């Protein structure tokens, strides 16, 4: 515990920075988790390959933007389109033939696809790290590196956010300024570093989530998707075609992978093992939030990202993940239905 204690007592600014970065990472994880969770909730199948699909979209965006010099938005649109195609393809080619087999076989089939995509990416594009980076200047304010653009963007990003996140962000934002002035004479302040790319990603992630929420609650097909996730059998009795809904769900899930890819590529480099790095944590978030529970997955993303971020600063990156995974295991035992499930 000494690492965390040190951080809280001696370096509150670093802690605040870690928390803020965790919040921003949470936005991206939430986006990945939402798409997976949608599929998970409706089809009751774990697409182990999900993050690898996002990785393929990242490669597409990388090549269109960096090699063919498309505008970033066009690249992102292409990425999302690829996501839709991949989602539908996985569903029709791999899931449909084995819909009736045990869940474990379905999980392994998508796992085999994971191997295929990972190795194909290594084969085609080698293990080089590739990224589309947005470079933005930072301004030094009294020993602290802060960019006003970042802060403004952060304020904008939080605009579309749920109330509690917004207040938390504003809280952090103001403490940041205060702590600079108050602690400057006594502690050598390293300054808070928040990446602008992450802020944009976070803001857009929130917007997409709101869009998904509206899609699921306000449209006919969205309502049907939610209905299937609640009761599969009853749905076909009502005259709806589950097969069509599965396909639409897979397409939407794939599109979300594309959106996540567009937001990930501006802050992380893409490499064939990207899926392996983000995959496990994404499944944990889905399960932790509760199968098909969008709000649960959203909150779980932030819990996990904060643990990873603060744990990473307090001890080491690996320990951050260790704590997050251990927490997942323990919570699975205590609340198998997710953190928001009612006790049986």
């Amino acid at each position, binding site marked *: 515990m000494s690492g965390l204690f040190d951080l809280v007592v001696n370096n509150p600014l670093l802690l605040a920075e870690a928390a803020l970065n965790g919040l921003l990472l949470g936005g991206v994880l939430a986006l990945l988790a939402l798409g997976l969770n949608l599929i998970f909730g409706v089809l009751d199948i774990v697409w182990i390959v999900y993050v690898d699909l996002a990785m393929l979209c990242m490669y597409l965006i990388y090549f269109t933007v960096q090699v063919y010099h498309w505008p970033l938005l066009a690249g992102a649109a292409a990425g999302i389109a690829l996501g839709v195609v991949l989602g539908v393809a996985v569903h029709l080619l791999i899931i449909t033939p084995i819909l009736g087999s045990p869940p474990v076989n379905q999980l392994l089939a998508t796992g085999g696809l994971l191997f295929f995509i990972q190795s*194909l990416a290594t084969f085609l594009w080698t293990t080089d790290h590739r990224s589309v980076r947005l470079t933005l200047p930072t301004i030094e304010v009294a020993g602290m590196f802060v960019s006003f653009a970042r802060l403004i963007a952060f304020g904008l990003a939080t605009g579309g956010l749920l109330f509690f996140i917004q207040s938390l962000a504003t809280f952090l934002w103001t403490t940041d300024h205060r702590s600079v002035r108050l602690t400057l004479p006594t502690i050598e302040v390293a300054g808070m570093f928040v990446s602008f790319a992450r802020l944009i990603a976070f803001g857009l992630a929130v917007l997409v989530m709101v869009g998904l929420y509206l899609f699921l609650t306000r449209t006919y097909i969205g309502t049907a998707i939610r209905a299937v996730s609640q009761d599969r059998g009853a749905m076909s009795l009502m005259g709806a075609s589950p097969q069509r809904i599965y396909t639409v769900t897979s397409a939407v899930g794939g599109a979300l992978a594309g959106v996540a890819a567009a937001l990930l590529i501006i802050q992380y480099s893409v490499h064939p093992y990207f899926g392996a790095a983000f995959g496990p944590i994404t499944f944990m978030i889905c399960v932790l939030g509760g199968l098909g529970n969008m709000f649960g997955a959203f909150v779980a993303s932030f819990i996990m990202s904060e643990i990873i971020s603060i744990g990473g600063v307090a001890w080491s990156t690996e320990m951050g993940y260790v704590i997050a995974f251990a927490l997942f295991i323990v919570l699975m035992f205590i609340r198998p239905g997710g953190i928001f499930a009612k006790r049986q």
Partner: protein
Amino acid sequence: MTRRAIGIAVLVAIALLPFVPMGGMRQYVLHVVIQIFIWSFIGNAWSLMGRFGLVSLGHGAFLGVGAYTTTLLWNFYGLTPWIGVFVAMAAAVVLALIVAYPCSRFGIIGHYFGLVTLAVGEVIRLLLIAERDWTGGSLGLTLKTAGDASFKAIQYADKRVFYYGSFVIWIFGLWVWHRLDRSMARAAMEAIGEDETAAASVGIHVSRFKLAITSLSAALTALGGVAYAQYIAYVNPETLAGVGVSLRIVFAVVLGGMYSLLGPTVGTALTISLSEYLRVKFGVHFIGMAETIYGLVLVVFIIFLPTGISGSLRGLFVRRRATTPAPARA
């Protein structure tokens, strides 16, 4: 009678393999076969659980615990792996119980069990990296050398020693599988795999059977990990723990067929031979090609031959011989 004769002939052929004149190829052939033996044994250990619906995606954890326990005990305390292997197996069993008891107690089955074990595998891998002061982090750890031939350290420059050693371990794994297959425990475990509540209602002690089978599987996996570490004389968190290796074990078994005795061996032999063949054929130019083909084959198999190569072949023979169809297995 004929089956026994074929079996004995195969065993004799395996036993004589190191004496076949192969010129410069001998070391290489032995190396490939040793790997097949060790990974088949590990796959076998996994399938003890996997065939009853306890699909673990974190067997890398037991592999890592096993390999690192003996290696650290040898490197830092000079404890011979002959004793270390028992410590390693005990450690793996303790870990298995820590995970399996709550899983059994809180009814975590199916793909939830898979995800919990996946997390366990990652925890072990990340802990091995985080504790870099002893474990060398992601750079791995080399076993302290003890000469060209040391019985105490189980280190031999001559591959034939490891060849026979891994052969014995492989046979041992098959024997355990066979014993379990013929025991009452198998019937009980199959009932549990089908429906836990129904199994409990006819008087099967569900938790006890699940914990026992998980412990057995973990202990054997740890033994496999130790064998591999001793042979390669180097341990690394990526090759011995975490999601990657865990899935590799599962896939080899699924490919070969987890419901038959030789399934894990067939699957492992096939995947290792395929990757070796492609590696030799294409050299370093087509890195990833082997796994690409492997992944594709895997998906096709899971869709079309859910009982794996070995299981499907056997199903075919059974159907031909008798008019009754092969028992359908999920």
